[in-house]
Each structure stands twice: as C-alpha cells, then as structure tokens.
C-alpha cells in the first residue's frame, strides 16, 4: 500500500503521484533547462549559416503547459504501474498513532486506519522559507515555479543551492532579468573551484549576483500576474541595506524534511531534532526495527532520485525477496544543470584533501573548448575537467569533475568506470573518441602540483 499526499504550498500549489522529482524537481527542471539551451542554440545557429528574419522570443505559458502535460502523463503512468503490481494507492496523509498502526486522512478530512507489519518512510522534503515578513505571502519556491501560470518576469532568486542556480540559469536563458542573492558561498558541499567557475559563467552571461546579502523584508507594491514586490536586503558584513523591485522572488535556500508531523515520536523513531532527518543503518532501518526510511529524509545520504529508487528496490528485495544486497552510497554520480553543466562523481577536492591529505592526492586538470563552441564564437578557457587521484592506491580516481555541455551524459560512463576501480593508468590506456568533450579525460597530463598553466592559447 502507498500513501501519497501533497500538502499544498503556501500559495496553494499541489501535484499528482510521483514525488518531488517528477512534479517539482528533476523533470520540469531539466525541461526548462532544455528550453534555455535551445534559446542559446538559436543564437549559435546564425554562425552556422541559419538565416531567419523573425525576432526570437519565448512564451512561458506554451512551455509550462507542455511540461505540465508531460508530468500529468507520468502521474497517470505511476497510477497504472501501481495497479498492475496490485499496490493499493490512497491519496491520504499518513501518520503513526501507535505501533504498527497509522491514520490516513484524505483531502476531505475522512480518516481511515491501517495496520501493517512493516513501514517505509519516504516523505521527502519541502522548500524552506526565510522567516521574514512577506515570505510566505509573496514569495514562490520551486514548488510553485514549474506550474506558474504566468511568466515570472524580473526575478530575484534567493539562495546559492543547485536549485537556486539551476532556476536562475534557465530563467535568464529564456530572456528574463535575473538576480541571485547569495548569503555566503555557492553550491555548499560541491567542489568550490568548480562552484566559482559556474557562478562566473552565469555572471558573464547576464545573471546578476548580489553576494553576501540576505533579504530582511518583502513588500507587495502591486498585485498582478506577476505583481511587483519590493525586497529589502541586508549585508552580512555590515549595516548596508539595498532595496530593489522585482516581479517575482523565488526562495531556494534549502529544503526541510517532512518528518515532524507524522507521529514518529509516538512510535519512538529517532530523528535529528535540528534537521528532521532520520538516521538509518546500512539496511535503511531506523531505530525501530519494523520502520524503514529511504530518500531525501535520510541523514548523511545523497539526496538524489536514483539513490532513493535503488535503496527502495534493494530494501524490498531484502525484506521480501530473500536477497542480501545493500545500497552502495559511495561514488554516486550527479549533475548540476546550470547554464554551464557540472557533472561529478566521487570526492570534491576539498573533501579529498581532508580525507587523504594533500601529499597523497594528485589532481589533474585542463580547460577545453568544445568543437561546437568554436564556430559559434563561444568562450574558450571556460569548460573544465578535473580528476583527483589517490597516490597511495595506484592513482585510483577518487574524484571526477567535468564542467561543460552534456556534463550528465559525459559523467555517467565514468561513474561506471569508477565503480570498476578506475585508475589514472586505465584512463590513459583508454583511447578517446574524437571530437568530443569526454575525450579530454583520456589525455590529461598537467597536474595542479606542477603549477603549469592550463590556459589554451590562440587557434
């Protein structure tokens, strides 16, 4: 049995079956990112000989309608799949009332009680709000953005998470005036050298950054679709304030686990009181033996769709299929779909230095200029690749990083290679495919420690 219930966002947005990824995450994000990439491709196309008269402009409603139609078809697909596997589905909010028993409340407030031998918590997270005047009334989050019925217009994105940067990226890519307000660093937890390059590229391409500021007040100047909002922001380093008017304020400052109001305390499930996350053992079991958890609610595990799916599948097999395999959370690849995409697998340089110490690691790096960018006249010495090797373990590749087009596609194959124990030697022995971006990883020679320059010169 599956209980899925979406509590509407403060602005009233809700969605169907499938979770965050399908409805308000990966899927609509990647489609909107694609819309922005196509805009860029149109710009490049003239250099490749395409001639057209019309001024190119973007229609928000056309894009969101098409994306929402696709999402609805996915929602339906999940209903069908559940039915085919004889899984009962209830669109109800579940909470524990006592051991082995839950109360399910549907939209109309009707309560039904269920008992079960085992439970799996996969309730995920929702966007965090700032806690300042006007935030819940006037700001939107990623929960609202992907189905917004009107173009957001001049937008302020608050935050420096991958959600913030990805959204800022595609909004700017479809032609909107976008500012990103950042409290401290970009992409916390990711390799910082690359995070800064991502920010620099976005800034070069028209996204404004307000670094070291936080909003303190949001006021409504005029209602509308979109309306006009005034944002007052305070510097984190002094008493300076800035004020600016925007059509839309998008908050992307983090996500909070949905574990507080489901009666976990009634059955004794321990959660991290500060973060709401659930600690589990390597079999996704909570401190209560018959209650398990998977996905974004887990403490210290990557918050990624494929991780949750894999953990869930293996858990089911262990519980009911007699299998023993556990989910491997090491070397999980991921990609950030900012305008310049970033794919990575393994450790950031900071983490590698912390775990293995500087003398034991070797970092190889290079800039590269994708062939398609040459004729298009796009930037050189911008796309970047880096691998981090463990000198004490046969130069094992412990960190893979690529900043460039189709980063996700490039990274996927290397993630499999790392699972097989990829070493620098094996990479060198691999012959590259030409002309591609990925081939740079088969010919990397310059190390950071050598101090040699990696900037490419001239033609």
């Amino acid at each position, binding site marked *: 049995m599956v209980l899925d219930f979406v509590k509407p966002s403060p602005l009233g947005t809700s969605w169907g079956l499938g979770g965050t990824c399908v409805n308000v995450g990966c899927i609509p994000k990647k489609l909107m990112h694609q819309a922005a990439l196509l805009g860029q491709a149109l710009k490049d196309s003239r250099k490749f000989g395409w001639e057209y008269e019309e001024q190119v402009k973007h229609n928000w409603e056309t894009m969101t309608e098409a994306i*929402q*139609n*696709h*999402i*609805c*078809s996915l929602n*339906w697909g999940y*209903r*069908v799949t559940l*039915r*085919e596997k004889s899984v009962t589905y209830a669109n109800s909010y579940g909470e524990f009332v006592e051991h082995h028993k839950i109360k399910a409340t549907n939209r109309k407030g009707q309560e039904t009680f269920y008992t079960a031998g085992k439970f799996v918590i996969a309730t995920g997270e929702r966007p965090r709000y700032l806690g300042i005047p006007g935030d819940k009334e006037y700001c939107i989050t990623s929960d609202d953005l992907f189905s917004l019925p009107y173009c957001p217009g001049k937008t302020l994105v608050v935050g420096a998470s991958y959600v913030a940067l990805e959204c800022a990226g595609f909004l700017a890519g479809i032609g909107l005036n976008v500012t990103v307000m950042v409290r401290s660093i970009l992409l916390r937890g990711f390799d910082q050298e690359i995070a800064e390059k991502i920010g620099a590229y976005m800034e070069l391409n028209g996204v404004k950054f307000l670094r070291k500021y936080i909003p303190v007040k949001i006021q409504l100047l005029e209602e509308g679709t979109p309306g006009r909002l005034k944002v007052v922001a305070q510097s984190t380093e002094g008493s300076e304030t800035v004020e600016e008017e925007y059509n839309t304020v998008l908050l992307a400052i983090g996500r909070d686990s949905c574990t507080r109001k489901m009666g976990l305390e009634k059955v004794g499930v321990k959660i991290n009181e500060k973060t709401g996350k659930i600690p589990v053992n390597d079999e996704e079991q909570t401190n209560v033996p018959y209650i398990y958890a998977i996905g974004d609610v887990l403490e210290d595990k990557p918050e990624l769709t494929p991780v949750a799916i894999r953990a869930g599948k293996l858990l089911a097999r262990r519980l009911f299929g007699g299998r023993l395999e556990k989910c491997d959370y090491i070397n999980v690849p991921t990609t950030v779909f900012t305008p310049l995409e970033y794919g990575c697998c393994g450790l950031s340089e900071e983490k590698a230095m912390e775990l293995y110490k500087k003398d034991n690691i070797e970092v190889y790096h290079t800039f590269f200029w994708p062939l398609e960018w040459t004729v298009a006249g796009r930037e050189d010495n911008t796309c970047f690749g880096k691998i981090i090797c463990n000198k004490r373990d046969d130069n094992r590749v412990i960190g893979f990083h690529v900043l460039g087009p189709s980063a996700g596609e490039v990274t996927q194959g290397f993630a499999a290679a790392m699972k097989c124990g990829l070493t620098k030697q094996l990479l060198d022995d691999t012959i590259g495919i030409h002309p591609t971006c990925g081939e740079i990883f088969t010919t990397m020679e310059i190390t950071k420690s050598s101090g040699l320059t990696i900037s490419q010169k001239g033609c």
Partner: protein
Amino acid sequence: MAQRVVLRRFLAPVLFRKLPRCRWGPLPPEVLAQGSSGRPAAALCLARTFSTTKISKVTFNVQDGPDFQDRVVNSDTPVVVDFHAQWCGPCKILGPRLEKMVAKQEGKVLMAKVDIDDNTDLAIEYEVSAVPTVLAIKNGDVVDKFVGIKDEDQLEAFLKKLIGC
C-alpha cells in the same frame, strides 16, 4: 440536426416512459414532418430539465460512476466510450474525429467521454493504461476496444461493427 434533437428531448418522456434508460427508437413520421417553426419554448425548458441526466445528446461527458452506470452500462443503444485526458495530445485529435463519425451514425450509437483524471476509479475499473482508449459497450459489456489514434475510415468500420453485431 439540432432541431431533431430538440424534438426528441421534448417527445422522449412522452413516448418512452421507462426511466432512467434512454431510448432512441425511430420517431413516427408525423413528428419528423413538423417544421422548425413550431419549436415551442416548452420543449427547450423540458430539454433543460432532463438534459443532464435522463435525456442525452449523441455525445455526452460522463460526470461520475453512477452517471456512467446510468447512461453507458444501462444504455439500450451501443455506446463508444472515449477515455481521454487534458494532458494527452493524441486525445485532442481523436476526440473530435470520433465525435464526427458517431454523429454520422444518426443515433444508432452514442458516445460517452470520460476524463480519466476526473474519473480515475472508472478508468482503473476498465483497465485503461494509455490514452486515448476507446471501448465499445453493448448491453453493458465491452465488446470491442482500441488504443491510440485511428483515421476516419477505421473509426467508421469500428462503429459499423458495433452497430451491426
């Protein structure tokens, strides 16, 4: 065409008292001979009273399970049921096309439209996986079915088969 429908609405409760089932037997010639000028306001009022539940046009939207039971399962006339969704592109093509072909059959077959998001239980009960799915229902049983788009000739053949058998 519209005039005929109005006359039917007016006459149906008079000629066919059995409710809630709709009956579309052939109208007596003297009724059909009446011209359009004689369309009384009363007929329109009657039509409004009955239109949503008992007396239907050739094509109608299913409101819920009981409505489906009423107008499709218990229908004396064969019904093609078009399961569709707002988010489905091909449905927007098939729907009007099927409606047109059904209208050509002059009342020998009716068409029920079911939005699968509004009537999910119904769609699940009839095992609809993909849309558009069209079922042919006669005397309460599913006698034929197809999934996806068909052209006019194929639809004509599908309908004729349903009416014929």
